[in-house]
């Protein structure tokens, strides 16, 4: 399989994402914001940073770049799209994911390692993890507070679209474990068809022991496993009645 990592003006973590993929033995191509082709990649990564200076709203201007037209079509056709931090904000602005990301509850930019619980494993992005596994992942953002209206939130829960939640080290989704005020401690969500995933934590910064941990590598491995072997069925996470 082939990965593509998009670079917008103001992207910061595009080379880190390509580096992480290289460490994991995954070939990745660099995609430019003006590109009108995704060069046949199997999964697109929208990296962290401050695309277009975060002017107007984070992700609002990147959403209209030529490459995003390709990404939107690719996602509509079932292509896999992973948005990390600013990439998550772009996906929400593009309407590929519901809700929005607003200023952190305490207004400060947060750079820290947090714990996230894997909520669902029957997705292309989390298949390599165990249900309820607690991961240590870095976050670094000023606008990571996930919000959506009550109906949207209920829909996300009912369809099991919340993939990562902020928790404490013991795996409890407490208020204290919520770094930015995100509703329901949401750290990452997928779309209804489970081929688009956005998250605020940075898995690409957690793929080497040298960088403090390898808990993020599972996301990239999940995509690889899904594309080569198909999606494993994990009945444990399917609620009764389905």
């Amino acid at each position, binding site marked *: 399989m082939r990965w593509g990592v998009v670079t917008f003006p103001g992207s910061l973590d595009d080379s880190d994402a390509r580096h992480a993929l290289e460490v994991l033995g995954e070939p990745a191509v660099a995609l430019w914001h003006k590109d009108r082709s995704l060069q046949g990649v199997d999964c697109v990564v929208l990296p962290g940073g401050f695309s277009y200076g975060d002017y*107007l*709203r984070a992700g*609002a201007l990147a959403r*209209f770049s030529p490459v995003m037209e390709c990404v939107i079509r690719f996602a509509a056709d079932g292509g896999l799209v992973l948005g990390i931090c600013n990439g998550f904000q772009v996906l*929400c*602005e593009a309407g590929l994911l*519901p*809700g*929005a990301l*607003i*200023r*952190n*509850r*305490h*207004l400060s930019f947060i750079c820290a390692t947090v714990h996230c619980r894997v909520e669902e494993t029957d997705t292309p992005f989390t298949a390599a993890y165990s249900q309820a596994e607690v991961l240590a992942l870095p976050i670094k953002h000023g606008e990571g*507070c996930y*919000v*959506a*209206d009550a109906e949207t939130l209920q829909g996300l829960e009912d369809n099991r679209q919340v993939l990562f939640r902020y928790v404490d080290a013991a795996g409890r989704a407490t208020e204290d474990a919520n770094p930015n*005020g995100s509703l329901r401690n949401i750290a990452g969500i997928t779309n209804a068809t489970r081929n688009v995933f956005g998250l605020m934590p940075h898995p690409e910064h957690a793929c080497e022991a040298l960088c403090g941990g390898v808990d993020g590598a599972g996301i990239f491995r999940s995509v690889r496993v899904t594309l080569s072997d198909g999606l494993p069925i994990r009945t444990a996470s399917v609620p009764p009645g389905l």
Partner: protein
Amino acid sequence: MRAKVYVTLKAGVLDPAGKAIERALHTLGFEEAHDVRLGKYIELRVDGDATQAAGRLDDMCRKLLANSVIEDYRFEVGD
């Protein structure tokens, strides 16, 4: 046509910046200030007559200037 666009946070959406401003106002002795909400004000010039401009401005707000998930907008068209 000159136009003024006001983008405001929807009722119920958290506004930590508005809260911080409110606390600062209270610290300065303006205890009568409440419910501070921070929004955006955008000035622009739009070609066409007032009716055309209003229609186009509405499009601009829906497509870019406001995010309907969290924000409301209103605008004024004038000379």
